[in-house]
């Protein structure tokens, strides 16, 4: 098991980047580089991470980054992997680093294609549950009832279950993570690096700007999402489903905090009624029933 003190002091997301104060995706990026070092090529579509490094001709990324069109992360990563193979470079990991809009909505066809071609790369979706860098618009990842600028009275539909959409592609490794649990996060990325084929990692990256909470609460918000069961830490390795701690200890409903604690701390859920909160709680419990069955079948 990794310990925080063993991690490299080297930074590849340089100081002075222009992410919002308290940015969850920025913590995730730092953790990604702590896990993989600088032997990595990032493919970044339009998303917050194409803004975070700052304006041309400077960048805060100290690793090679290919900025790409919104829909083309999977296709571009396939191209980079093919180029590396042609030049016989074996020690470089290709990482597709896309937001939830670029994964759930716009980039899903290129991602699906790359997974079907069994491209050897890690696709990481950092999910802040809205189109963040254009000013918080609704995406396929926005949860039920959340305010965005395009759903001023709260979204009326549920969030897609992207991890299981990817599981249907029968790829060798799928995991969920959260920067509030850095050891779990880093271990999953390192594990994904060792596996051959397409790997998909889904990260919940809390966003103070879009979720409307105080900037100091980013890590706390991620932790609360896991403890209430809204976000679940699991991995599906070669079809085998496994819950990871601390989610693995939360199968019993009594051990999970009520989702109300998580929802009421965020300004984007301010318009939720008691009925809506009960509905969300019911959906979370249904998801957990599914996870329990999956975990006990293994």
């Amino acid at each position, binding site marked *: 098991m990794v310990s*925080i*003190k063993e*991690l490299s*002091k080297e*930074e590849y*997301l*340089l*100081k*002075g*980047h*222009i*992410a919002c*104060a*308290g*940015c*969850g995706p*920025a*913590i995730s990026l*730092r*953790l990604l580089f*702590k896990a993989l070092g600088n032997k990595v090529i990032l493919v970044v579509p339009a998303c917050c991470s194409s803004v975070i*490094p*700052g*304006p*041309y*001709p*400077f*960048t*805060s*990324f*100290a690793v090679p980054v290919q900025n790409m069109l919104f829909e083309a992360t999977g296709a571009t990563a396939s191209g980079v992997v093919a180029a590396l193979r042609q030049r016989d470079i074996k020690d470089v990991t290709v990482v597709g680093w896309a937001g939830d809009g670029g994964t759930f909505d716009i980039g899903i066809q290129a991602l699906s294609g790359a997974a079907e071609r069994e491209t050897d790369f890690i696709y990481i979706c950092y999910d802040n549950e809205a189109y963040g860098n254009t000013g918080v618009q609704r995406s396929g990842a926005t949860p039920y009832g959340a305010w965005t600028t395009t759903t001023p009275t709260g979204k009326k539909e549920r969030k897609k279950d992207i991890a299981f959409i990817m599981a249907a592609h029968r790829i060798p490794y799928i995991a969920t993570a959260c*920067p509030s649990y*850095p050891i779990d996060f880093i271990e999953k990325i390192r594990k994904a690096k060792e596996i051959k084929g397409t790997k998909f990692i889904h990260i919940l990256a809390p966003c*103070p700007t879009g979720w409307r909470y*105080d*900037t*100091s*609460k*980013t*890590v*706390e918000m991620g932790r609360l999402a896991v403890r209430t069961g809204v976000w679940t830490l699991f991995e599906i390795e070669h079809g085998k489903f496994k819950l990871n701690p601390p989610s693995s200890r939360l199968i019993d409903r009594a051990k999970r905090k009520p989702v109300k604690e998580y929802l009421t701390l965020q300004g984007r859920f301010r318009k939720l009624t008691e009925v809506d909160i009960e509905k969300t709680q019911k959906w979370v419990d249904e998801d957990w029933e599914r996870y329990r069955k999956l975990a006990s079948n293994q």
Partner: protein
Amino acid sequence: MSSSAKTRKEKPITTLSSPTVGVDKTGFWRTFRPEVDGSKCTRCTLCWIYCPDGAITREEDDSPKIDYDYCKGCGICANECPVKAITMVREGE
């Protein structure tokens, strides 16, 4: 490509950007300043791993050092410190 170029005009015409520390002096964004009480700090390094800006560096003995040129004052370090060794102080006080 010259990495010593500091302005747009000095750069050769290319689509590449060069890695630079301090694309923006983000310390100006700050309203509250984190201050570390060295006597309370247990050197757990949690503030270092959770800092979104990489503005906290680990010293030789793992104690945190905050770079105020780039700290945006988000307050995650103060919120996450298990022994409350970091306090947020309003700038100018």
